[in-house]
Every structure is written in structure tokens, then in C-alpha cells.
């Protein structure tokens, strides 16, 4: 038979960007262990609406771990303590009856809180806009098989491209560094032959924007990697460091930007 549990939630409530915000405690009863974490929050919402209160605002969309929209820190860990999954993939069977669960928004200066658990992550889009693309105007492409790519390279690019842009890496990092995210993008595009032409520009432009948006630097401690739902490894940051350094050397002798 289905098991249920009673929980105490401590949720960050903040009306808008300017509000100071605070934790509010809620009691929930009879939550099925088969529910997902977000379904549990849906139940809380319904309960609040019934009482005429505003529900907790949180971002979510696909609810299957791919859109990267859901974003909350659960008991101190972005996306929750299970690891390797997003908050929407987390299920209540990993919690126990009577547990107190603390839910906080992503914490980072470049991610201002919009409301409750909803933060503004457009800074990540800006990094992409600076250089996270391979220019290929529609209509200008050669045949897809004209350029064979060895499987190892293709697989590596795919590993990097698996990033869903959720920002958990930033949220987990005590420095709010966006290195893992930026590195995943750079590693994906710089390692493919198609991406070589813009490699140096890309590395320089994306890092400059990343710093400019107010993300912190990397201290190589790996919290990002542990929080990342898609298993993006620190290797990619090493590659970013390398590609950036080489681009700087190039740029010193012959400006590329």
C-alpha cells in the first residue's frame, strides 16, 4: 500500500526583488511517497489557496528533468540531496515522516530573487549571447557527412552539451561561479571541428561576459559538479581554463576580438 508522510516545510518567502524575505513554516499532511517533490509543493499551493493565501512561487515547466527551469535548494543542496537529478525528478520517497525540509532559492548575486523561489537567470543567457554559438546561417551548411567527427570527440561534445542551463552549479558554488555552465558550453563547441573557427573569440568573449555579469571565480572545489543534474565534470572547466589561456596568448600576439 501507498505510504504517506507528514512534513514540516521551511520555505523562503519574498514578495519581490526589493523585499527582504524570510522563512515561513508550513505543515503538510498525508503526502504520498510516490509524489514528486514539486507535486508536494502543488499540494502546499492548493492548501494555501484554500486558505486564501498566495501559493509559493517556484519555477518549473517540463517536470522531467530536461528544461532546466526548476530551481530550488532543498536542505542546502541545489535540486535536493539525491544528486544527479533535478528538483522535479526528486520523489518524496527519499524523505521520511516528520522531516523538516528547508527550501531556499538559488543564491547568487547575478540571480536576483524575483519572488519566493523564483530567480532571474538571464545572466546565463547573456553568456551564451556573447559567444555560445557556432555561426551557421540557415542555408549555408555543407552535407552533414562531409566532415566526419571521430566518435570520441562527438561523445565528448555530447557529454558537454548535456547541460540544461539550470544554474545549480552557480547555486552550489560558494563563489556563485558560473564556470561549469560556461565551460560546458565552451567544451561542447570548441571541441567540434565546426566550432574551431570561432574558438578563440568564443573563449574570450564568454569568459569576459561571465565575469562581467558578476559571477565569482572558480576555486576548483567541485561543488558545482556534485550538484549538476547532468553530470558535467570538472574536466570541462580545465578545458575552459586552457582554451582561455591559449586564446589570451593568441590575442596578445594577434588580437582575435
Amino acid at each position, binding site marked *: 500500500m501507498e505510504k504517506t508522510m507528514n512534513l514540516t516545510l521551511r520555505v523562503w518567502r519574498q514578495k519581490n526583488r526589493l523585499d527582504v524575505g524570510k522563512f515561513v513554516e508550513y505543515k503538510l499532511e498525508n503526502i*504520498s511517497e510516490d509524489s514528486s517533490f514539486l507535486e508536494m509543493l502543488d499540494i502546499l499551493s492548493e492548501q494555501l489557496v484554500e486558505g486564501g493565501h498566495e501559493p509559493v512561487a517556484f519555477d518549473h515547466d517540463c517536470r522531467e528533468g530536461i*528544461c532546466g527551469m526548476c530551481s530550488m535548494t532543498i536542505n542546502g543542496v541545489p535540486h535536493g540531496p539525491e544528486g544527479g537529478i533535478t528538483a522535479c525528478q526528486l520523489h518524496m520517497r527519499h524523505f521520511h515522516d516528520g522531516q523538516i525540509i528547508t527550501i531556499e532559492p538559488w543564491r547568487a548575486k547575478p540571480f536576483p530573487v524575483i519572488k519566493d523561489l523564483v530567480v532571474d537567470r538571464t545572466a546565463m543567457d547573456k553568456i551564451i*549571447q556573447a559567444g555560445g554559438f557556432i555561426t551557421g546561417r540557415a542555408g549555408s551548411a555543407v552535407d552533414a557527412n562531409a566532415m566526419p567527427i*571521430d566518435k570520441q570527440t562527438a561523445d565528448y561534445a*555530447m557529454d558537454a*552539451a548535456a547541460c540544461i542551463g539550470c544554474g545549480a552549479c552557480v547555486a552550489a558554488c560558494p563563489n556563485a561561479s558560473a564556470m561549469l555552465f560556461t565551460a560546458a558550453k565552451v567544451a561542447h563547441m570548441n571541441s567540434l571541428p565546426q566550432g574551431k573557427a570561432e574558438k578563440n573569440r568564443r573563449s574570450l568573449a564568454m569568459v569576459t561576459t561571465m565575469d562581467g555579469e558578476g559571477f565569482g571565480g572558480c576555486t576548483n572545489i567541485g561543488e558545482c559538479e556534485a550538484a549538476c543534474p547532468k553530470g558535467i565534470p570538472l574536466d570541462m572547466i580545465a578545458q575552459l581554463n586552457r582554451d582561455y589561456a591559449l586564446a589570451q596568448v593568441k590575442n596578445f600576439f594577434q588580437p582575435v576580438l
Partner: protein
Amino acid sequence: MNLDSKIPEGPLESKWSSHKFNMKLVNPANRRKYHVIVVGSGLAGGAAAASLAEQGYNVSCFCYQDSPRRAHSIAAQGGINAAKNYQNDGDSVKRLFYDTVKGGDYRAREANVYRLAEVSSDIIDQCVAQGVPFAREYGGYLANRSFGGAQVSRTFYARGQTGQQLLLGAYAALSKQIGLGKVKMYNRHEMLDVVKVDGHAKGIIVRNMISGEISKHAGDCVVLATGGYGNVFFLSTNAQGCNVTAAYRAHKRGAGFANPCYTQIHPTCIPVHGDQQSKLTLMSESLRNDGRVWAPKDKETAKQIREGKLNANDVPEDARDYFLERKYPSFGNLAPRDISSRAAKEVCDDGRGIATTGLGVFLDFRDAIARDGKHAIEERYGNLFEMYECITGDNPYETPMMIFPAVHYTMGGLWVDYNLESTIPGMFVGGEANFSDHGANRLGASALMQGLADGYFVLPYTVGNYLGEQGVAAAGQVTTDHPAFAEVEADVKGRIDKLMSINGTESPRSFHKRLGNIVWEKCGMARSKAGLEEAIQEIQALKKEFWENVRVVGDADSLNPELERAGRVADFLEFGELMCRDALMREESCGGHFRVEHQTDDGEAKRDDENFTFAGVWEYKGDETVPALHKEPLIYENVKLVTRSYK
């Protein structure tokens, strides 16, 4: 309503090229004088916005998520079709065309489908050039797989994340244009209405979802690529925010809505676990390559399994009904989606369903593991098994998976002509939002293809043609100062005020759930005249209740998910009724639309080609008036209509 499909003259193979030649061009220097509004940043919208900006047009792009990269295209797992014939296994543009028409149960427009097949190759080239990391073989060339029962291997894929990788490609191109200032991106903005000036679509009204501000946007034309309406069923594999609002608003302003009853139900989803569920999860169709679908032969066994008294593994072989293999010996477990889904429903209706709700059947890997070894199965499906275990807590290596059909895709949508222009001039519709090229049923891996075909290779031409026809003198002439904008804006605001002021007792979510129940029961996998008539009545009553008793907490001038949902549910309510009307009108069974009155003796769908070879296009006539039906006859010059058989 004018349903001129504008199919170009000439033989099928040269229609698109001669049409491109005949189009009006806009001088590159003049393009910057035009402003195109694109609503949606999925494969269709993202690709269109990026391509139009690359050509030199100024573009404003809107999406309701916090980033264009999160459009629901991202969730597609399986792959994308293209007639590359890299496998040398007999594929061709013609075959892809033919398969798509047949798969759609002969309810799609030939010329459009042919064009889709024609540009499919270009899509793959384009995506690879953008760095989409498709799977490759050791030799370095692209890998393909056979998908959804196709007899050739024409599906390109990127692990289980094809949609995400394709969308990231389009998003990257779009981002470049945003960075260059050619595209102005409006994240977290929801389109709530279309503005027409002199009959042409010239703008939209949007709500800033953070500040609640309602704003007017004018352009020289509008492209809608707002995705499908599967969420009318409340539970579906769609993202939470997927909605019909944009399309339905356009419909109310004069765009014909075609074939709303064509919905696709995917057979391999994880069953519903209880009434708190918010979303259904798709398990890749590829699982059916090795898994065997079964249910207990008798009800008593099924009951014991449901109550947890009997373990599925202990059910002896002769007490199992491998119903797909039994009914469709030649296709077996790989029978097409609509057919497999219906077969599962029959079993459950028969009282032999499993899972706590009785709404589920087994997908069993026991034999495959015994045959190929656990390792081989792990190699093939490891991450899917993990995903299943993550959601259900069961280990599919040890106990059989449970699956049940769920709403997945909607073939219906706004009617468009060959140029993807709706019945509102200047309003183009791409991707899942249009009534598309899939007829009454979509083949696996063809939606991504269609979205990108529309976005990269069709809209950039046909939008340019429209703008060229309008002439450069007209460019940028309509501004938001035009009184039409204020009028529509007032409507939008009025509606929001109304929603906020009802102050009833029931949440929008609860209404949505109730609507979902009605349409799933009566306009889902099997539909009947009586059921549909009831459904229409029930929806009307529910709609009335909604406008009297909905409770929207919070306020309108800040982020308010309740208000967002309320607006969407209000549109779903009206749309749900339209969907049922369409299903009622279509007195035949075809593709995803199954009318119990129209089946063969052994329960297979029975088409009525004589009377229903048309697209049913609905014209909005007023809130209290029955919509008017128009028909676009479908003329088949190149394929012969035959009965689909998978036996």
C-alpha cells in the same frame, strides 16, 4: 472563411522550388525596415526568429519561460527523421513523404508533406553545422536508427536528448542574433491576444509575467509557434506551461482552427500513481524494441497484482496475455502508437489492468535479459531504466515496467495554407501550433523535423514573400498608437480584472483537473457520439462555474502563477468544447481519432474516405454561438488511399 491552400501548380517534386522562384523578394537593404513578431522560441519559433534576423529583419521574440532555451521542444527524446539515406537502405524523399502521409492516415496535405520530406536533409546539414552533437559511428559518420516502426533507419538522434540538442542549436543561433541586437527577446512574457489592423495581423498584446504589465507590440507580421495544446487533458507529457492561449486567441480573432480532435496518445508512459499527479512522463518508444507488452489473462490475477498480493514475476507464462503480439503478429510490440495505445486501453477496460489504479500494463524485459544478458540491456536502456526507477521506485531489471498511454502530441492546430499563413493574413503559424503535416497521426521523430523545417526553411521564405507583397512603403507603418491596439489591450485587461475579481472558492488548477477528466474520459483514446455530447454539456457547465467560482489569489501586477493558470484554463475550457465538437463531427475513425461507432469487427479503426477526406476548419462565431465548420478537401494525386494494416 477563405481556405485557399495556395498549393503551387506543377508536379509534386517541383512545387516548392518553383514556388520559391515565384516569391517576392525583399532587398537586403530594405529588410531592416521591417519588424517581425515571433511568438514562441521552440524549434519552430526559435529557428524562424534566428533565420529571419540573419536575413536582416528586425525580430521580437516572445516566450513564457525564463529563457528561450526552455521551450518544450527540449523534452523530445527519440530523434528526428530525415531522408538522407545514409544507411543505403532504400530511403528517399518520396518514401519519407509516403510514410508520413500513410502514417497520418491520409488526412494530411500532400504538397506540404512532400516539402517537409524534401527539406528534411537540409535540416540535418544545418544542425550539424551548428554543432548539434548527433550520435556517430566509430568511422566518424552520423549514426541512424529505425524509430517508431519505420522500415528504414532514417532517424538521427543525440542520446536520449535529441530535442534538447536541436533546440540548443536553434537557441544558439537565436542568442547570436540577440547579442547582435537583431532580435529583441522577451522572456517571461505571455502573449494574450492578437491585434489586427485592416484585417491583417499587425501586433500582439502581452503580459510581462514578472511585473504584470500589459504591453502592446506592433510589427509588420506575426509568426505564432506556440506549440501544442495537449495540456487540455490536464495530464499529459507536455510541460506545465504548454497552453492553447496564443492559438486560441488568434482563433477568436479570425484564424480557423483545423482538426482539433486529432490528438496523439503515446503508449509508453509511466502510469498515473494517484490524484495528486501533475504530469505524465514518457518512456522512450525504443523500449518496445526489446520489451514485451502483456497483461494477465484473467481479471482475478490482475486484481491480485493490483492489491500487491501477487508479484508479476510469479504469473506463469500461460496466464499472460501478450496482447500486441497476439493481435498484430507481424508488427507485434512495435505496432504504431495509436494502435498500441488503444490495445492497452481495451485490456484495462476489460478489468485486466495492473498498477494500483488498474490503468497500466506490463512492459517486460525478462525474456530480453535472459536472451541478451543484463549487460546488453543495460547498454541499450540503462538511463531509461534509471529514470523509471527514479520516478516509480521499482527496478525494471527485476520487476516488469508498468506503462500506460498518455496524451503526447496534438496534430490539430491553426489552419495554414502552403505558405503557413493562417486565415488571418499576415499571421503565420509554425511547428506543433499549426495543423501541420501529420494528418490524423504523427510518426515518431517527425515533429522535430516539422518544427525545424518550418523555422529554418519555410517561414524565412514565405514571411519574406508576404512582406515583399506588402511593399516597403508599408514597412513599419503600423504602430501601437493605432486605435486597434488600445481596443484589444482593453479587452485583455478587462479579462484579467474579471478573473481577479470573481473571488470564488475553487482554484484554477482544480478546474483544469476537472476539465482534463472530462476530455480524457470522453474525448481521449475512444470517443462516442453520446460521450462527446455529454462532454460538451459538461464543459459548458464547467465553464460557467469557472467564471462564477474561480479563485485567483495574489495580485495581477506581480508574478502570479495562479493568474497565469487561470487565463490558460479559461481558454482550455472553450477549446475543449471545440475539440469535442470536432470529434463529434468526424464520423469516422482515423489515426489518433477513434470513434467507437466506426470500427471493424475486430475492433480496428474504420476510415470513411468518401465523406471525410478533408481538414475540418472551425470558425469562431461568438462565445455563445456554435462555431462554423469549413472544409478543406484533401486531394490525393500521388498516393493511393489504403487501409493501414499492422497485422
